[in-house]
C-alpha cells in the first residue's frame, strides 16, 4: 500500500505532453535558425544551390569597413544602457520603496512597459531631434537658435541617443521584475534590522536585500543586455547609420536584393551571438567583483547614512523620472504631430490643428491595425494554451519547473533574435516553406510564450488549492476542478497574460520582417519603414496606432472582469 494515495494524485493523462510540446515549440525554431545561420557562414546553403566548406563569408564580413565600429557600438551601447537602467532601477527601489514617491513612479512606469520599442524610440527621436520639443522649448531664449540647428543628435555616431532610448525602455521592465520578486524576500524585516543598526537606506538595502533580489533578477538582466546589444528596432531609429551597429549591418545584408550577401550576414550573426555570450560572461565577472566589494563593505561596517544616502536616492529618482518623461513626452509629441497643421520652429505648439494626417493615413493604419491585432490574438491564444498546459501539468506532477526549465523559457529572450532569425529565413527560403502566415505566427509564439508564462505562473501557483480539495471532495474530477473552479477564478490574471502576450506580439519587428520574407505589414514594420523618411505627421499617426494596439488588450483585460463579475465582489477585490 506504500504511497498508494500519492499515485492517485498523479494519474497519467494528456497534460504531461504539453511541457514537451512547449519545449519543442520554443527550441525547434531556435535550433533550426541557428543551423540556418551556421551552415551558410561556412559555405553551406548557397543561393544557387550546393555547399562547400569555406571561410569566404568571414573574409567578406571582415572586409566591411564599418565592421569594427559596429562591433564596438554593439558592446558599448549594450553594456552602458543595461548598467544605467539597472542602476536607476536599484537606486529607486532601494531608496524609495514604500514611499508615496515610489508608488507614483510605479504607476507611471508600469504602462510604459507595454509601449512597443519602436514607438518609444520614435517618440524619443521626436523629442530630442534638432527641431524637437527639447530645442523648441529652449529656443531662442536660451540657445539663440532661430531655426533648427544643424546637429546630429538623433543617430549620433557615438550611439548616445541609442543608449538613452534603450535605458528609458528597459528601466520599467527591470523595475517590474524587481517588484514581482521582492514580496518573496521579506524586505521589511531585512530593512528593519539594517536601519535599526544605523545603516543608511540605500547602503542597508544594497547589503541585505540586493543579494537575494539579484539572484532572481539575473536572467531578466541578461535578457536586457542581450536585447540592448543586438536589437534592430531601437537601433534603426536612434542608432548611428554610417557605420551602424552590427545588428543593423546584418539586417542590411539580409534584406539586400543581392542574395550573395546572405553568407556574410550569417557569419556576422554568429559574431553577434559570440559578442552577446562574451558580454554576459563579462557581466558575470562584474557580478563577482561587486559581490566581493560588498563583502569588504560589510566587514568595514560603514553605515553610509549621511549625504551619500541622499545622493543615491536623488540619482535613482532622477534616472527614473527622465525615463518616464522620455517615453511619455515622446507619445504626447507624436499625438500633437499627428494633429498638427502648420508648426513653425521654434514655436512650442502648432499654430493650427487638423485631421489632415488622419484623413491621409488613418484608413491604411486601421487596416494594418486589424492584421496586427489578429496575428497578436492568434499567437497569444496558442501560447496561452501552452502556458496553461505547462502550469497544470506541473501542478498535477506536484513539482515546479526546475532550473533547466526556467533556462529554456528564457532562451528565446536571451539569445539575440538577429543571431537565429536570419538563419530561419534562409532555411525557409531554401525549402520554399516561407509561404503563408504560419512562419510568422510560429516565430511570434516563440517570443510571446515566455512572457506569458512569467505573467501567469505567479497567480496560477498562488491559487489556494484547498478549493481543489473541496471540489474533489464533492465529486469533481481534476479536469472539472480546472475548468469549473481554477480557470474561472483566474480569469483576471489570464486576461492580463493574454494582454502581455498580445503587446509582445504587436511590438515584434524582426520575426515579422524575416519570417514573412518582408511580405507581411504590421504596425511595427510600417512605423519603422517610415522612420527614415522623416514625415513626422505620418509617423505620428502610425506610432499612435501602434501604441494604442498594444494598450487595447490591457484595457480589455481591465474591463472584462468588471462586466463578467459585476455581481461578484470577491472576484474584483479579493
Amino acid at each position: 500500500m506504500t504511497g498508494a494515495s500519492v499515485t492517485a494524485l498523479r494519474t497519467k493523462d494528456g497534460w504531461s505532453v504539453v511541457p514537451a510540446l512547449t519545449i519543442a515549440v520554443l527550441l525547434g525554431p531556435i535550433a533550426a535558425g541557428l543551423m540556418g545561420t551556421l551552415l551558410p557562414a561556412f559555405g553551406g546553403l548557397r543561393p544557387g544551390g550546393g555547399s562547400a566548406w569555406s571561410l569566404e563569408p568571414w573574409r567578406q564580413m571582415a572586409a566591411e569597413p564599418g565592421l569594427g565600429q559596429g562591433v564596438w557600438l554593439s558592446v558599448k551601447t549594450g553594456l552602458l544602457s543595461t548598467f544605467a537602467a539597472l542602476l536607476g532601477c536599484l537606486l529607486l527601489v532601494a531608496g524609495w520603496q514604500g514611499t508615496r514617491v515610489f508608488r507614483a513612479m510605479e504607476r507611471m512606469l508600469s504602462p510604459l512597459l507595454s509601449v512597443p520599442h519602436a514607438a518609444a524610440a520614435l517618440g524619443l527621436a521626436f523629442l530630442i531631434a534638432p527641431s524637437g520639443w527639447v530645442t523648441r522649448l529652449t529656443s531662442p531664449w536660451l540657445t539663440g537658435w532661430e531655426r533648427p540647428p544643424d546637429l546630429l543628435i538623433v543617430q549620433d555616431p557615438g550611439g548616445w541617443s541609442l543608449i538613452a532610448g534603450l535605458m528609458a525602455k528597459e528601466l520599467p521592465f527591470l523595475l517590474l521584475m524587481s517588484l514581482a520578486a521582492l514580496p518573496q524576500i521579506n524586505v521589511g524585516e531585512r530593512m528593519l534590522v539594517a536601519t535599526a543598526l544605523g545603516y543608511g537606506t540605500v547602503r542597508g538595502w544594497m547589503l541585505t536585500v540586493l543579494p537575494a533580489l539579484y539572484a532572481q533578477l539575473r536572467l531578466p538582466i541578461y535578457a536586457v543586455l542581450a536585447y540592448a546589444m543586438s536589437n534592430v528596432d531601437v537601433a534603426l531609429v536612434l542608432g548611428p547609420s554610417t557605420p551602424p551597429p552590427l545588428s543593423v549591418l546584418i539586417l542590411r545584408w539580409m534584406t539586400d536584393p543581392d542574395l550573395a550577401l546572405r553568407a556574410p550576414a550569417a557569419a556576422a550573426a554568429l559574431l553577434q551571438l559570440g559578442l552577446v555570450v562574451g558580454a554576459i560572461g563579462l557581466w558575470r565577472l562584474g557580478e563577482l567583483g561587486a559581490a566581493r566589494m560588498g563583502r569588504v563593505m560589510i566587514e568595514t561596517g560603514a553605515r553610509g547614512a549621511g549625504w551619500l544616502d541622499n545622493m543615491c536616492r536623488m540619482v535613482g529618482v532622477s534616472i527614473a523620472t527622465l525615463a518616464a518623461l522620455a517615453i511619455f513626452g515622446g507619445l504626447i509629441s507624436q499625438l500633437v504631430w499627428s494633429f498638427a497643421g502648420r508648426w513653425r520652429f521654434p514655436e512650442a505648439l502648432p499654430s493650427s490643428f487638423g485631421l489632415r494626417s488622419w484623413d491621409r493615413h488613418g484608413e491604411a493604419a486601421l487596416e494594418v491595425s486589424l492584421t496586427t491585432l489578429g496575428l497578436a490574438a492568434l499567437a497569444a491564444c496558442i501560447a496561452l494554451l501552452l502556458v496553461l498546459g505547462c502550469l497544470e501539468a506541473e501542478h498535477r506532477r506536484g513539482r515546479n519547473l526546475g532550473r533547466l526549465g526556467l533556462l529554456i523559457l528564457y532562451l528565446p529572450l536571451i539569445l539575440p533574435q538577429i543571431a537565429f532569425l536570419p538563419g530561419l529565413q534562409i532555411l525557409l527560403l531554401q525549402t520554399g516553406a516561407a509561404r503563408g502566415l504560419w512562419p510568422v505566427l510560429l516565430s511570434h509564439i516563440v517570443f510571446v510564450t515566455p512572457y506569458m508564462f512569467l505573467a501567469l505562473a505567479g497567480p496560477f501557483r498562488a491559487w489556494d488549492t484547498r478549493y481543489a480539495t473541496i471540489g474533489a471532495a464533492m465529486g469533481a474530477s481534476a479536469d472539472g476542478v480546472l475548468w469549473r473552479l481554477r480557470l474561472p477564478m483566474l480569469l483576471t490574471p489570464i486576461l492580463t497574460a493574454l494582454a502581455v502576450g498580445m503587446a509582445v506580439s504587436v511590438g515584434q519587428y524582426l520575426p515579422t520582417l524575416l519570417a514573412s520574407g518582408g511580405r507581411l505589414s504590421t504596425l511595427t514594420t510600417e512605423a519603422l519603414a517610415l522612420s527614415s523618411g522623416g514625415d513626422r505627421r505620418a509617423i505620428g499617426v502610425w506610432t499612435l496606432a501602434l501604441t494604442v494596439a498594444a494598450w487595447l488588450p490591457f484595457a480589455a483585460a481591465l474591463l472584462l472582469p468588471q462586466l463578467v463579475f459585476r455581481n461578484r465582489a470577491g472576484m474584483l477585490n479579493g
Partner: protein
Amino acid sequence: MADGLELRDLAIAHRDGRPLVAVSTQVKPGQVVSLMGPSGVGKSTILAAITGVLSPSFTCTGDIVLNGRSLMGLAPQKRRVGILFQDHLLFPHMSVGQNVGFGLPRRTTDRKARVAAALAEIGLAGFADRDPATLSGGQRARVALMRMLLAEPETMLLDEPFSRLDAELRERMRELVFSRATAAGLPVLMVTHDQADADAAGGPVIALS
C-alpha cells in the same frame, strides 16, 4: 456496511523517509473524534491523506477504510469524503445557490428545488442568487456546511472549522455541525487547537505530539 471511518496504522513520512505522524483510530457513525496537538505536528496532513490530496513530498502507509471500502489509491473525487476549512472558501465566482448545488450528483433533476430547500433549512431562504461576498461570516459557514452535505459524503472532516468565528457564533455553529453529522450518521474527524471544540464534540480526543 456503515461501520464508520477507520485509520489502520496510518503513518505519514517525508519523502526522504523521516517519519512525520502516525495515528490509528476508529470513528463510529455519528461519533466525533478530535485530533489535537501543536501546529506543524501533521494534523492537517492526516486530513489531506484521507481526502486523497497528500502532497507528493510525503508518503503514507497503513490503510484508510470508510464503511468497509479502502480509500488508498482511490482518486479524491471517488472517496465521498466531505471537508470543511476554517475559511469557508465559498467559490467566489459562483452565486450562493451555485455553491450549494456544486456537489449535487449530476443526474439530479430538481436541482433548483433541492438548493432552495437546503438554503431554507439553514435560514437563508431566497439567497440563491446572492453574491457570496455579501454574506456574513456565520452565513458563509452555514452555506459551506450545506454545500458539503448536499454532495452526500460518507464522512465529515473538519479542519479547525470554527476558529474564525466569534464566541457566540462558534457555539451555534458547533451545535449545527455536530447535530447534522449525528442526524446523518456520519463519522466526524476534527482537527482543532481549541479544547472547547473537543469538549463540545464529546467524543474521544487523540493528542498528537
